[in-house]
């Protein structure tokens, strides 16, 4: 009787131990059925509009892999548990949450937030804990400049600012202007980097920076800068600023009668909020992106249709969803290739990525960045359409309709 009781007790204890291991998630030893991945995203605050798109993309990819029975690692299927935390668009919170996700939730890897002010602090956490992070929408030069010694565990998929800034002038070349540019950039990392590149690139395309404004994020009144841009007779306007600031600028330009022929609003016009807040005034604004409806990469159009079904209707927002989905697939493929949940093995496998995903081909360089091809979109009739490289049936509208 006592032998039976001892055996039953041992069995019970083993069962409890096994259950607790499963319940804790974790990085998984061979008996673990769950893999935890995490993301700290701006779901509230000034950057929330894009944060929710990435969240939807990440979640869709995780739902798909779980619906297919889980992520296969070394012959065993793992359920993927995606933990997403809201960093309220605050870099300090993002940094703390990344630490929590890695060390308390035991995430094998993180998917990134976006924009350098959030991606850089989270990348630094990844380097500290030595676990991988795949991010997007952090312009590569700005991201690389934050760690001159080079990133070891952080990866970035986005366009290279040099190609993007060159494209601004290539697009401006599509119409006749006096080649005088008003350049407005804020003092965030990408604003600083992009501002410098636009200034350097302009002469190579025969353009002159006739007026340059640098200002802190949160600036609301632009009267004096607009007056200066008008006085400088700048027919090309290029801006890199947060959505609230950009919207304030556009309204004031309209009110103060500044009518640039070409008007680019990087970052500011990246979601439908742009048109909701500005109405027709937002029409004609240009913005660089990495995906448009003319792209036919495998799964691309199907994902766009799914996004539309989920209420993500504008092309530029579907791009965020598709990018989120694609980098999650990059991570899944890397875990499969690694054949284990060991962070170093996954990290090495991410570096070997060389495949075409719904957003396009992804292949990281030795600097851990994948410079995707930038394209130029323009807000036309409430949606974004690709105007560069040119596609059939679409032409660049100039002067910028909303400011005319």
């Amino acid at each position, binding site marked *: 009787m006592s032998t039976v009781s001892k055996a039953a007790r041992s069995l019970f204890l083993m069962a409890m131990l096994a259950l607790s291991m499963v319940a804790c998630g974790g990085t998984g030893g061979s008996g673990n059925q769950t893999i935890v991945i995490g993301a700290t995203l701006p*779901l*509230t*605050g*000034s950057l*929330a*509009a894009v944060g929710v798109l990435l969240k939807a993309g990440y979640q869709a990819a995780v739902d798909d892999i779980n619906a297919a029975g889980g992520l296969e690692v070394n012959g065993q299927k793992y359920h993927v548990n995606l933990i997403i935390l809201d960093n*309220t*668009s605050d870099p300090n919170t993002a940094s703390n949450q990344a630490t929590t996700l890695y060390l308390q939730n035991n995430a094998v890897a993180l998917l990134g937030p976006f924009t350098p002010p959030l991606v850089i602090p989270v990348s630094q956490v990844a380097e500290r804990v030595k676990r991988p992070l795949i991010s997007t929408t952090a312009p590569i030069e700005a991201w690389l400049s934050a760690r001159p010694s080079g990133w070891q565990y952080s990866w970035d998929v986005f366009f290279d600012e040099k190609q993007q800034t060159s494209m601004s002038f290539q697009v401006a070349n599509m119409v006749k202007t006096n080649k005088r540019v008003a350049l407005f950039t804020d*003092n965030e990392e990408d604003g600083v980097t992009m501002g410098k590149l636009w200034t350097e690139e302009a002469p190579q395309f025969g353009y002159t920076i006739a007026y340059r*404004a*640098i*200002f*802190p994020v*949160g*600036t*609301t*009144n*632009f*009267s*004096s*800068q607009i*007056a*200066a841009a008008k*006085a400088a007779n700048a027919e090309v306007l290029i801006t890199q600023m947060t*959505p*609230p600031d950009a*919207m*304030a600028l556009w*309204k*004031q330009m*309209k*009110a*103060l*009668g500044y009518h640039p022929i070409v008007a680019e609003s990087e970052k500011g016009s990246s*979601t439908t*909020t742009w048109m*909701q*807040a*500005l*109405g027709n*005034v937002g029409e004609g604004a240009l913005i660089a992106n990495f995906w448009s409806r003319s792209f036919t990469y495998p799964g691309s159009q199907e994902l766009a249709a799914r996004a539309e079904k989920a209420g993500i209707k504008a092309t530029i927002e579907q791009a965020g969803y598709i990018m989120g989905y694609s980098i999650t697939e990059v991570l899944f493929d890397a875990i499969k290739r690694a054949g284990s949940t060991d962070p170093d093995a996954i990290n090495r496998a991410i570096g070997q990525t060389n495949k075409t995903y719904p957003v396009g081909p992804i292949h990281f360089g030795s600097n851990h960045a994948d410079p995707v091809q930038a394209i130029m979109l323009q807000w036309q009739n409430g949606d974004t359409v690709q105007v560069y490289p040119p596609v059939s049936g679409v032409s660049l509208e100039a002067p910028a309709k909303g400011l005319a």
Partner: protein
Amino acid sequence: MLFYHLIDGFFLGGLYVTIALGLTLVFGVMNTVNLAQGEVLIGSAYLTYTLSSLTHLDPLLCLLLVAPIMFVIGYLVQRLLLNPLIPRGQETLLVATFGLLLVAETLFGLIYGNNTLSLSASYTLTGLNIFGDTVRTVYVIALVAALLLVVGTHLLLSYLPLGKAIRAAAEDPGAAASIGINVPLVYGITFGLAAAISAVGGTLIGLSFGFGPTTGSSWLLRSFTVIVLGGMGSLWGTLLGGLLIGVLEEVAASIVGPQFRDLIVFAFLVIVLIVRPEGFFGQRVGVAK
């Protein structure tokens, strides 16, 4: 060119007066800094946005309803939440208004989402020619509103029985109570008035710029700068402070660049506080007249 920047700044300053006046009134009467002032402004903008979307009326016309609603909200907050905390001291009131700030920010996000919104009206996209300078029409409206609000509040405090009661409660609450003035009621009305006045500032923010759940904090900072410069709790000081900050911002931005605008404004504030710690008009609303 400098003359044009002076004009631009002068009219922009009118907007700053409308956002700071509510803070002035509360401080002048109750000697309390309402840390939720930014949320009062943004809450008003949201309310105007809702009404304007539902009725398709002009946002400024919606103020006829938004201001009374904000008055009732302000009155209830003071009577039900802040009045009971007064005996516990200023620190408790500060913490309470900070709590209100956090609650309001969360509520805005839950109700309206986190995207930037903006109020639409034709005059937000037009300018007026003033001495050869193009000034946004909405800034001109803001300056007119600021002058009307300052003069109106001054007349109310100086000549109406309610104003006299407010001044008495501001000067010495104990003495005011001893002569039969219901001080908690007066405080409630004052907070309500401040919220109603802020409804004008909030709506003008919505018309002039964009707003979201977290934008209130930056407007609190701007309001605070205005009232500290003008003299904490002084109506005329708020008028002067607002106009001065507007002019200083514009001129600083044009001369040294917009990236140094805040640096110049706050450096000027520090200098004024060293030379004249009480601000330009260092007399509170209740004590002023």
